[in-house]
């Protein structure tokens, strides 16, 4: 037992430190916890003594709503329901506009192509521009614009209302268990828009350790570039055989499930990191739930269309155009009688098959590193170019190509969704990780760790389903 220091008139610094340590050890709780508890207790006492509520407390509708939305039992399920609704509205609302844009842009492309042929342009120029670059662009616009134009305004309204801190509030305990910062939920929601933005948002986390965890795991939230891929796969495969409302509901359910898996991996990997290479205690913080604010329509319109939709779309377009050209070249440059894309996809085939995908899909992922949003267009272009132009104007034709000609199964769809969710960040996000961490090491970890997880998970799923004899 520690002996109390005999009273002296002067001590050495070491005396003081030793005594501080001894006093610390004697305490039942940590000093900080005791101080915080004591502060709260005092504040409560002081306030009780001086404050009196006359009549009933004025309850704003926001207060009442908060009681339900931040309730430990109803909060998270309600927010899950809210997310599902947002995704469902996006899927149901984007379906027809996507088709219209698709039809229009492809009609326009064919028109221009014929014009080129009539004018006697060389076949390779016509092919490169209209079958390569233009098709890539048309695909990206048709697949991405409608969902984004619906999703981003809803997201911005929720942000403006003051909803995001409440998500953080409800998820705090989960992140605490994972040894991460509660504000990581905020950075996660920003990641829905764009992972690069999500990584930047991690600045709100002060502790370098927890900030790094948030940066490294942000990728597990599917960004808007990956949403259309998930939506398309869910609609085509998971909701296959259903019509109308049932189809969109089931598709939304599948996408929500994928998002949940993403959140699960965020927490799992955070927990793993905070117990291994990034050891430490989660730091405490206070988070104010701001009063609900009436959203400003003009600001929402501006933010969601100009800053978000057009920004992301423009980035996708600038990435899709060169990729479309590259794919066309890959499909039309032949070596020993085989096109480059055939060579490449055949080389990747064994690896692709092992994880329930195929060589073309992996090739598409390599070509699409600059932007995740063009993975599916790339896959389709490689398929269709190899098969001498398949018209993909309708979902049925798309399905025919994937299922009948390329042998896609439900396993392919499931694993493609999982791979899309878990694989490496796009080049913009990778660059953002570097500029935020200023560390080559963590950038490499942030890139390769998700990629390895994606391979591992899809491998396990593919192999176990095959062993079960389902595929």
């Amino acid at each position, binding site marked *: 037992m520690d002996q*109390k*220091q005999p009273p*002296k*008139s*002067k*001590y*050495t*610094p*070491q*005396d*003081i*430190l030793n*005594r*501080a340590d001894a*006093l*610390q050890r*004697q*305490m039942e709780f940590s*000093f*900080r916890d*005791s*101080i*915080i508890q*004591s*502060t*709260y207790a*005092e*504040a*409560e006492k*002081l*306030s*009780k*003594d*001086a*404050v*009196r*509520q*006359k*009549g*009933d*407390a*004025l309850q704003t509708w926001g207060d009442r709503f908060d009681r339900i939305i931040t309730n430990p039992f109803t909060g998270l399920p309600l927010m899950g329901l809210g997310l599902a609704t947002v995704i469902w509205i996006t899927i149901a609302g984007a379906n027809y506009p996507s088709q219209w844009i698709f039809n229009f842009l492809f009609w326009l492309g064919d028109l221009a192509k014929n014009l080129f042929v009539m004018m006697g342009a060389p076949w390779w120029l016509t092919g490169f521009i209209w079958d390569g670059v233009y098709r890539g662009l048309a695909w990206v616009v048709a697949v991405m614009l409608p969902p984004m134009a619906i999703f981003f305004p809803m997201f911005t309204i929720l942000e403006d209302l003051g909803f995001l801190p409440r998500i953080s509030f409800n998820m705090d305990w989960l992140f605490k268990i994972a040894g991460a910062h509660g*504000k990581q939920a905020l950075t996660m929601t920003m990641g829905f828009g764009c992972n690069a933005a999500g990584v930047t948002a991690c*600045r*709100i986390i*002060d*502790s370098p350790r927890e900030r790094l965890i948030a940066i490294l795991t942000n990728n597990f939230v599917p960004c808007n570039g990956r949403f259309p891929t998930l939506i398309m796969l869910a609609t085509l495969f998971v909701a296959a055989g259903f019509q109308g409302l049932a189809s969109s509901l089931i598709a939304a359910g599948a996408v929500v499930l994928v998002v949940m898996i993403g959140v699960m991996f965020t927490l799992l990997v955070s927990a793993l990191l905070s117990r291994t290479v990034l050891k430490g205690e989660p*730091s*405490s*913080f*206070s*988070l*104010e739930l*701001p009063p609900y604010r009436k959203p400003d329509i003009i600001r929402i319109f501006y933010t969601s269309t100009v800053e978000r939709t057009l920004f992301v779309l423009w980035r996708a377009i600038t990435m899709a155009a060169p990729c479309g050209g590259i794919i066309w070249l890959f499909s039309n440059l032949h070596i020993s009688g085989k096109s480059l894309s055939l060579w490449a996809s055949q080389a990747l085939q064994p690896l692709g098959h092992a994880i329930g995908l195929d060589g073309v899909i992996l090739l598409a992922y390599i070509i699409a590193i600059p932007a995740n949003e063009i993975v599916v267009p790339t896959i389709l272009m490689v398929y269709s170019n190899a098969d001498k132009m398949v018209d993909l104007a309708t979902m049925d034709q798309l399905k025919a190509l994937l299922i009948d000609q390329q042998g896609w199964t439900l396993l392919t769809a499931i694993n493609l969704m999982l791979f899309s969710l878990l694989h490496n960040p796009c080049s913009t996000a990778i660059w953002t990780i570097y500029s935020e961490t*200023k560390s080559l090491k963590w950038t490499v970890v942030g890139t390769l760790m998700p990629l390895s997880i994606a391979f591992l998970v899809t491998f396990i799923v593919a192999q176990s389903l095959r062993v079960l004899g389902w595929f």
Partner: protein
Amino acid sequence: MEPQNKQIKVSSQQKAEEPISSACERCPLAVQRFGIDLEKWDYIVALAGNPNTGKSTLFNALTGLRQHTGNWPGKTVARAEGGFGYQDKKYKIVDLPGTYSLLSASVDEEIARDFILFGKPDCTLVVVDSTCLERNLNLVLQVMEITDKVVVVANLMDEARRRGIEVNYRRLGENLGVPVIPAAAAKGEGISEILKAIHDMVMGTTHTTPHRIASEGPLKEAVDELTDMIEKTYPGIPNARWIAMRLLDGDQKVRETLANGDLAQLTQGQVKTRESVDLDV
């Protein structure tokens, strides 16, 4: 927000990135009287408080500046400094980042804490939201651990009244042991009382007996014992109690400084400003 009280003479300087010209064009008279010469202030006033309590509104009301209000934690807001004159004395007022506590290690909290600790403000105003006093009092209690020269501004009293919340400001002041001034800064209510409270504080006519957190039980014994050891070893040291608490909390920085025998550095340490902190942003 133009100051309503005729006694306030306003001069202004803002060390933020934002241009100050527009603010000074609106107060040409005051600039003529003082010039933008903040090297020659008589007293320093620190402005602390939770976010969204109207701190910046009060800052603007006192200085005539137009600092941007409304922020959310993490968004970098430049630390603002301004000046005002009252009863022939010149004051520099420093608007600290809004924080809920001074305990955890966030950059904002560190800036606020270090300024109150090392910036040697002659008076620290803690702005609290009268509609949710309990939560706001946590910060008041923590500030009072560091300094005795505290004036609490109970802002948003009009909103509290509207919600049927009756606050006995006098009683609160008695229990806290520091002056409590009710105010509605957005409407200019209470500004002159705040100025008088600042004046009385810096002149030394106000005697405070700050309510301490660890005022009973084993916590008090531990803090008292260590404080006593520090005071005996370093006679005349200010903030001995704060150092004791930091040591008990295991603050590595304070431990090292003490072990180096360079405790003077702790009490006369440089004030961290937003400019000097590497925010890595």
